C-alpha cells in the first residue's frame, strides 16, 4: 500500500517535470503544443545514445539532456513556433501533430523502433532496506531531484526579477510589452527551459516509463491532463494534478488492472466537465 503510494508519487513528480513546460506554453501564449512529448523523447534518446554508444555516465547525461533539449527548443521556437502564436487553435493543433508525426518517424528511422533500455549505475539499483515499505532507490532519487527542481522553479518564479517579468507577461502580454518588457525574449527563454525540463524528465523517465519512438503519442494525453486539470495559472496546480494522476494511475493499474487507463480518462472527463478551467484555477482569472 505504502509502496504503491510511493511509486505513485515518484510517477507523479516525473509527470510534473515533464509537463510543467507545457503549462507555461499554454498559460503564457495560449498555444496548444501537442508536440511537447517530442522534446521529452529527445531528452530520453540523448541519454540512451550517450550512455550506450559513448559510455557517458548516467549523472553526466542528465545535464546534457537538459541543455541539448533546451537548445533544440530554443531553435524550434525561433524558427517554427513563433509564427504560430497568432494563429487559431485548429492550426496550432495541426502543426504540432505534424511535428509529432515527424519526430516519431525520424527516431524510428535513425534509431529503430525497439524499446530502449538504460543501465542505471549500481548505487541507484535495488531497494532501501526498510521494513514494510519497499522503496526503490531510483524512485527515491527521482522524487528528491524533482522536488528540488520544483522548489527551484517556485523560487525563480516568485522571487527573482525574471520570475516577476514572466508572471507579468502571463497575466497580460500586451500590457507587459507596453511596460517595456521584451515578451518575445521572455517567452523564448521560458520555452527553452520548459523543453529542457521535458528533456530531463524524458531522460529520468526512460527507465520508468519506457522509451520507444511512440513515446510522444503515448504520453501526450497524460501531459495534457496534467495541464488542463491543474490549470495554467499557477505552478502548484499542475504539481497537485500530476501527483493525483500519478497515484491514481499506479493504484488503478494495480488494483483493477482490467480497466487500465479507463479510470484516469473517465476521471479527467468528469473533472473537466465540472470545472472546465481546471481544478486549481485562480478565481477570477482569465
Amino acid at each position: 500500500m505504502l509502496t504503491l503510494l510511493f511509486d505513485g508519487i515518484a510517477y507523479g513528480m516525473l509527470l510534473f517535470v515533464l509537463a510543467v513546460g507545457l503549462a507555461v506554453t499554454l498559460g503564457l501564449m495560449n498555444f496548444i503544443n501537442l508536440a511537447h512529448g517530442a522534446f521529452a523523447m529527445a531528452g530520453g534518446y540523448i541519454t540512451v545514445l550517450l550512455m550506450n554508444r559513448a559510455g557517458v555516465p548516467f549523472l553526466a547525461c542528465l545535464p546534457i539532456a537538459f541543455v541539448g533539449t533546451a537548445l533544440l527548443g530554443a531553435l524550434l521556437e525561433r524558427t517554427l513556433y513563433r509564427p504560430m502564436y497568432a494563429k487559431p487553435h485548429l492550426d496550432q493543433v495541426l502543426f504540432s501533430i505534424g511535428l509529432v508525426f515527424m519526430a516519431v518517424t525520424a527516431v524510428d528511422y535513425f534509431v529503430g523502433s525497439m524499446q530502449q533500455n538504460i543501465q542505471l549505475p549500481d548505487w541507484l539499483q535495488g531497494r532501501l532496506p526498510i521494513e514494510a515499505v519497499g522503496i526503490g532507490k531510483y524512485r527515491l532519487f527521482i522524487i528528491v531531484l524533482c522536488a528540488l527542481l520544483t522548489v527551484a522553479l517556485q523560487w525563480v518564479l516568485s522571487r527573482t526579477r525574471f520570475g516577476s517579468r514572466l508572471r507579468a507577461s502571463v497575466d497580460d502580454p500586451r500590457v507587459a510589452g507596453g511596460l517595456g518588457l521584451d515578451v518575445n525574449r521572455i517567452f523564448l527563454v521560458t520555452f527553452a527551459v520548459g523543453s529542457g525540463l521535458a528533456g530531463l524528465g524524458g531522460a529520468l523517465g526512460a527507465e520508468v516509463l519506457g522509451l520507444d519512438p511512440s513515446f510522444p503519442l503515448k504520453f501526450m494525453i497524460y501531459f495534457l491532463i496534467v495541464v488542463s486539470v491543474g490549470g495554467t495559472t499557477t505552478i502548484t496546480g499542475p504539481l497537485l494534478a500530476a501527483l493525483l494522476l500519478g497515484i491514481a494511475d499506479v493504484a488503478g493499474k494495480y488494483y483493477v488492472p482490467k480497466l487500465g487507463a479507463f479510470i484516469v480518462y473517465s476521471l479527467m472527463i468528469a473533472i473537466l466537465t465540472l470545472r472546465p478551467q481546471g481544478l486549481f484555477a485562480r478565481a477570477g482569472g482569465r
Partner: protein
Amino acid sequence: MNHADTAGLAPTARSLRVYARWRWWELALYAALPLSWLLLPGQALLLNEIAIVALFAVSLDLILGYAGIVSLGHAAFFGFGSYAAALFAKNWMPDPLTGLAVAVGASALLGLATSVLILRGTDLTRLMVTLGVASVLYELANKLDTITGGADGLQGVVMGPLVTPFGRFDFDLSGRVAYAYSLLVLGVSLFVARRIVYSPFGVSLQALRDNRLRAASIGLSVRLRLVAIYTIAAAIAGAAGALLAQTSGFASLDVFDFHRSAEVLLVLVIGGTGYLYGGVFGAIVFKLLHDLVSAWTPQYWNFWLGLFLVVLVLVGRDRFVRPWTWFGRKK
C-alpha cells in the same frame, strides 16, 4: 408591428434562398459520383475507402467548419458505429441496411450523451474531453474482449446480401457492390447535410461559430444548437464507421485510434473547412497521396504526412489551396 415584421422577413428569406441555390459544380460533383463507379470498375476497393473517409470528414466538417468545435476524438463515433454494425451483423441480423440504421442510431445516442461535455470550457478543454471520450472507448473495446474480441479485433462478421427494390446484391471481392453501397450512403448523407447547413438552423450555426456571445444575445439558443449539430455529426460519422465494418467484414481497435482522429482532421483541412464538400475533395487527394507515398516508402509515410501538415499550416490553410497567392504581396 406585424407589418414591419413581414417587411423585415421577406428580404431575409429571399437572401437565404439565393444563398441556398445549387451551384453548377455541386451538380457536377453529384454527377461524378455514379460516373466514377461506371468508369473505374477496377479501382472499386480504393474508391470505396475514399468514399468512407469522405463521409467521415464531411461529418467532422459539420461540427468543425460550421459550429467551430475543434475535436480530436471524432473517431469515437466512427469506431462506435463500426463496432455497432459489426456486432449487430454478427449477433443478430446480417442485413446491411438494418445494421446501418442501428449503427447510425447508436452513434447518434452516443453523440447526444457526450454533447453535454463539449458545451463548456475553452478549446483546450474541448480538445481534451473529445480525446478522452475516444480513449475511453478504445480502452473499453480493448478490455471487453469477450464481446469485442479485444486487440485481435472482431472477426468472422458475415454480411448478408443488399436487399433493394431492384434485386439482391451480394458483396463481392472486387468491391463494386460495396462501392455502390458506400456511394449511395455518401450521396444521401451529403444531400441531407446540405439541407441542414443551408437551412436557417445551419446559418445560425455559423453565427454562433463566429461570435458565440453575440449569437446568444440576439436570442439564439447556443446550447441546443450545439447539441443538435453534434448529434447529427456523430450519426453521420457512425454511418461512415458502419460502412467500413460492413464492406470489410471486420472491426478492430484501430477505428478508435488517435491516428484516425488526426487523419480525418487533416483530410478535412486539405479539402477546406466550412463549405461541406471539403471532406470529399480532401479524401480524394489524401488517399491518392497516401497510395503514392506509401508505395514508395511504406514505413515512413507518417513523416511525410507530418511534414505536409507543418508546411500546410506555415504557408497558411487558406493560401495553400490558392497557389497564385504564394508569390504575391502579403495583405
